[in-house]
């Protein structure tokens, strides 16, 4: 039963952390509507995962499993694209933040962006939610009497524990000052996006569409095992794996400097008048 709990914890953790970082970021920048969209996307994903999980024995068997996996990789790349876009406009928007942050609440996000935020939450929760549903459904089917109930309860407790883990983690962020908060969550979002990119590349390699180039560049299993709680946490947050291939390392390593360059360009291309406002906002944040 402990095993059931741990598996469900691990399967749900990535979804909880991705939704957690979105909620934390939107919450601190006063985007109430954004928060509502994240919850809506998550809820929709839970329902969709339940529906797909329960129907899957009928539906999925008509869909080639390798095609399903390819579809998943495509959805991951799409999520990376939306998340990248979100990080960039958040950064652009951040210049206008500062003292007037709270007053600007609830009006800054256009509907398209809200849908984007909801879509990221949907993808994260659906992907992991589906696995959790399939796993728990299997537990239920294997023990078709009441003895299954404690196991299903353990599974649900594991999912709840994942939410609690994410909540605890992001609760710590409340103690950061506002500028540091935006800095830390910004970097975290970049790492989450890079992690999703690596997961997509990993799927393409597993499907035989990409070469690993070098199958295992290094092994950090001696330091952080994949099946340790820390390994599971890092895997869920930033796509950690102890024995990555060179193609995965390259994808991760290429994404970050490219993004830093794009973010720097946004800073550099701010018009002069805006620059003054940005500077005073930055000063305000610095002294806050």
């Amino acid at each position: 039963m402990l095993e059931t709990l741990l598996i469900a914890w691990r399967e749900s953790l990535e979804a909880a952390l991705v939704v957690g970082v979105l909620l934390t970021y939107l919450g601190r920048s006063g985007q109430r509507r954004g928060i509502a969209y994240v919850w809506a996307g998550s809820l929709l994903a839970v329902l969709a995962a339940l529906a797909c999980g329960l129907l899957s024995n009928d539906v999925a068997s008509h869909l080639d499993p390798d095609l399903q996996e390819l579809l998943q990789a495509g959805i991951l790349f799409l999520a990376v694209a939306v998340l990248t876009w979100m990080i960039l406009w958040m950064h652009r928007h951040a210049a206008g933040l500062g003292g007037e942050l709270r007053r600007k609440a609830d009006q800054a996000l256009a509907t398209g962006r809200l849908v984007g935020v909801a879509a990221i939450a949907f993808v994260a929760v659906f992907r992991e939610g589906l696995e959790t549903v399939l796993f728990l459904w299997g537990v239920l089917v294997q023990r078709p009497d009441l003895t299954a109930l404690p196991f299903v309860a353990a599974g649900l407790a594991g999912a709840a524990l994942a939410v609690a883990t994410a909540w605890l983690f992001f609760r710590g962020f409340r103690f950061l000052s506002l500028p540091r908060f935006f800095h830390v969550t910004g970097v975290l979002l970049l790492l989450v996006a890079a992690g999703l990119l690596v997961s997509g590349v990993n799927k393409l390699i597993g499907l035989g569409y990409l070469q690993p180039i070098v199958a295992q560049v290094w092994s950090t299993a001696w330091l952080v095992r994949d099946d340790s709680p820390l390994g599971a946490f890092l895997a869920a947050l930033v796509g950690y794996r102890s024995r990555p291939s060179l193609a995965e390392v390259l994808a991760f390593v290429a994404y970050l400097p490219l993004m830093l360059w794009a973010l720097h360009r946004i800073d550099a291309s701010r018009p002069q008048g805006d620059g003054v406002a940005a500077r005073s906002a930055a000063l305000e944040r610095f002294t806050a």
Partner: protein
Amino acid sequence: MRPRTPFAIAFALLFGIAGRVPAEDRTIALAVEDAGFAPAEIEAPPGARVRLEVTNRTAVAIEFESFELNRERVIQPGQTAAVYVSGLEPGRYEFFDDFHQQRRGALLVR
């Protein structure tokens, strides 16, 4: 350069280097049964490109997973999924069913 250009170049390079995929050297069939993996041990030569065809012969979903091979796939009952591994050094690479962890097996590369 427009902001997107370097991204395009980086990923074109990645897919250019990693995208030239040779045919597999061998295909190995691997079944997941209630009792465990059949066969529980499979073998491949070092450096080979191997296509594992993993069939779920149980009544519920399984997850073929290996930290040592850096692979994971959820497989529905009755379905067969292709899992590629390649360029492995000699050694023993364990895999398991993440949803039923008493089912374990290994790929021996030698």
